[in-house]
């Protein structure tokens, strides 16, 4: 007689043992595989970590933004540079004219000083003589006053006619005018002499003008220097930005911007790859492998990733992948040069 309870217990025991066997050996196999993987990756020098860069990738978008920004900056800098160039040209012309004027001014001043130095003694002597003449004329004019009185007495006495008297008065008045003119001439000459002296007001005016000219020249020179410095700074900045853009254009990310290539591989520093090396992808991480493409190019750009197994930071370079089987780029690791094992 079959006891259903016994059958049920035996079935449960059979299922339990089967499940236990599968689970325990599964876990054991998993642990062993994991240990093998740890050992393999500790010594492997052929693994690379593929990744796909899409044009919508944040890094790519970031780079695109930076390149556009840099190009805009370069254009702005070129506009500034042209402005500085034109300003510099104008300022240098102005500087040249001012320098020329300054030279002429100096020469004229020198000539004037020389002439003044010669003229002043002569004028001084002439003024002395004129002064002496004017003194003599004053004495004569004193006598002329007596003569005029005499003419009036003679006219009243009828000794002379009115016409003679008028003629005499006119002659006396003309003499007085001449004497006044002589005094004026003497005063003017004295003023002329004073103007020709070194500390005269006219000389001071001339010196002030010259100082203004010199000041203008200094200011202009300073402006020219500033403009030249700015121009050099702009040129350096343009060169730096251009170099950075050129560098960025050589990076793999730029290729993703242009959409030419979007599949790359991280190559740890310990591993070495060359353009044209075959690339293998495996079904079970490191076994059952096939060729999936070649290395398209290598980039001397440092990258840092998290190790696919050890989860530690790893430094290395980037390589471009030319994959005949594009979906291989989605694997965690690929191998360069050959299959990691013989199959």
């Amino acid at each position, binding site marked *: 007689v079959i006891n259903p309870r*016994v059958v049920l*217990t*035996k079935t*449960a*025991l059979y299922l*339990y*043992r089967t*499940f*236990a066997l599968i*689970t*325990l050996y599964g*876990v*054991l196999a*998993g*642990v062993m595989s*994991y240990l093998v993987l*740890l050992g393999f990756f500790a010594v492997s020098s052929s693994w690379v970590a593929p990744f796909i860069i899409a044009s919508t990738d944040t890094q790519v978008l970031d780079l695109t933004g930076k390149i556009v920004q840099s190009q805009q900056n370069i254009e702005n800098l070129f506009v500034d540079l042209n402005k500085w160039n034109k300003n510099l040209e104008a300022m240098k012309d102005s500087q040249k004219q001012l320098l020329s004027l300054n030279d002429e001014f100096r020469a004229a001043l020198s000539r004037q000083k020389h002439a003044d130095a010669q003229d002043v003694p002569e004028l001084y002597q002439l003024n002395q003589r004129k002064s002496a003449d004017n003194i003599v004329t004053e004495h004569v004019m004193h006598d002329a006053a007596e003569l005029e009185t005499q003419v009036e007495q003679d006219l009243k006495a009828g000794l002379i006619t009115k016409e003679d008297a008028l003629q005499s008065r006119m002659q006396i008045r003309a003499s007085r005018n001449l004497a006044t003119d002589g005094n004026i001439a003497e005063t003017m000459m004295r003023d002329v002499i004073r103007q020709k002296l070194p500390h005269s007001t006219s000389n001071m005016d001339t010196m002030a003008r010259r100082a203004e000219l010199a000041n203008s020249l200094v200011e202009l020179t300073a402006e020219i220097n500033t403009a030249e410095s700015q121009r050099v700074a702009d040129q350096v900045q343009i060169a730096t930005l251009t170099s950075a853009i050129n560098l960025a254009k050589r990076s793999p990310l730029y290729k993703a911007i242009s959409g030419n290539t979007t599949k790359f591989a991280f190559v740890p520093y310990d591993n070495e790859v060359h353009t044209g090396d075959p690339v293998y992808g495996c079904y079970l991480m490191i076994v059952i492998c096939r060729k999936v493409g070649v290395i398209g190019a290598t980039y001397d750009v440092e990258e840092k990733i998290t190790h*696919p*197994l*050890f*989860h*530690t930071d790893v430094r290395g370079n980037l390589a471009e992948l030319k994959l005949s089987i594009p979906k291989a780029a989605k694997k965690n690791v690929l191998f360069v040069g050959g299959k990691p094992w013989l199959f």
Partner: protein
Amino acid sequence: MEFLIFLTTAILWLGGTLIYVAAGILRLHYPKGRLKKDYSLKPTLSILLPCYNEGRTVYDTIESINQSNYPKDRLEIIVTDDCSVDDSFEWIQKAQEEHHNLTVIRNEKNLGKTHVILNAMRTSKADMVMIVDSDTVLHPDAIDEVMACFTSPKMGAVGIPASVKNPNENSLTAYQTAVYYSGFRIYRIPQVILNQVGCIGGYALAIRRHVFMEIAPKLEERRFLGCVVNDGEDRYITHLTLLAGYETYQDSDAVCWTSVPADHLKYWGQQMRWRRTFVRDFIFTLQTLWKHVCDLHPSLFHTYIVIPLALAVAGLDVAMVVLTGGGVAWFDHHRLFAYMAVSFLVLALARHFKKDQDLSNPLRVLIYAPWWIVNNFYLTLAAALTLDNGDWGNRDKKKKETK
């Protein structure tokens, strides 16, 4: 996932730390425990000594029992040879020739430890029985100390904290010495204070005979999917005693020594049996959860519920960390530092309080600090999936030895 791992780890560490801190404080406050002992108590006692492939060791154990200061007229030893394939029986016969208080039973076929104990218990007529492993060495005063604890009729079972016989044999035994110390001398203190010790080791377990008779049917009926269960009888006996309404106690004045495995294969086997015991006990706890809630002190929940659950979650954590590929990165210097700090703490306590367990080179213990990962990740799972195994553990494959 990272957060879950962090949370579980934090709860485990915090819970464990709190238990150990509380235990440390209680230990300082009650260095001798709270139980008032009565040394006039000298009940009749049967030592139940199951033996399977122990060789000469069983003879040494019998010798150590007979050197006890306990009155010889009140002490008998019932040795059962469970069909050993080595020279154990010859050693038992030698001991029988030398001592008259020895009753020897020899099984014609291997029955397993649980049934050996039950049969021996039925042979006994004493008031008390004490299960002693055949590789345990008792201090001459150990039996007196243990019997003096049965002052109350409520006291059902009393155990002895184990000292390691071979602490400095190698790094593995040094590590186990530290583990034994932390388990017996620190972790169990709160249970000792409450007279509710969750597990009394089967290497030296004294129990009232009538209590043992009361729980014996349940022990005998123990099966897993129809397979006989032979491991973990000590934990099960303690558990049943508590659920029957009796108290359990561990007497820190009593001393005994037991050898710990010195090679990895034996250690693995022992740990596997212990883990199976753990899993079985957890299942039993869940089956009788309401009785636990009603009858036992809440502190035992830590032993019977929290630890198994925490270990299961910790095992899952480890599995998830490995499966998600963070296996190596997870063992960073912070965790290594934590392992080292805890190990040093246990060692420092061990060296301070237990001079006879002094380790010649304590740093060796650190080699096994990450053992808990294996324990939780694989051993617990393996134990849970081999509950149908009913062997004698380390002694099964021992070859026959010549005298």
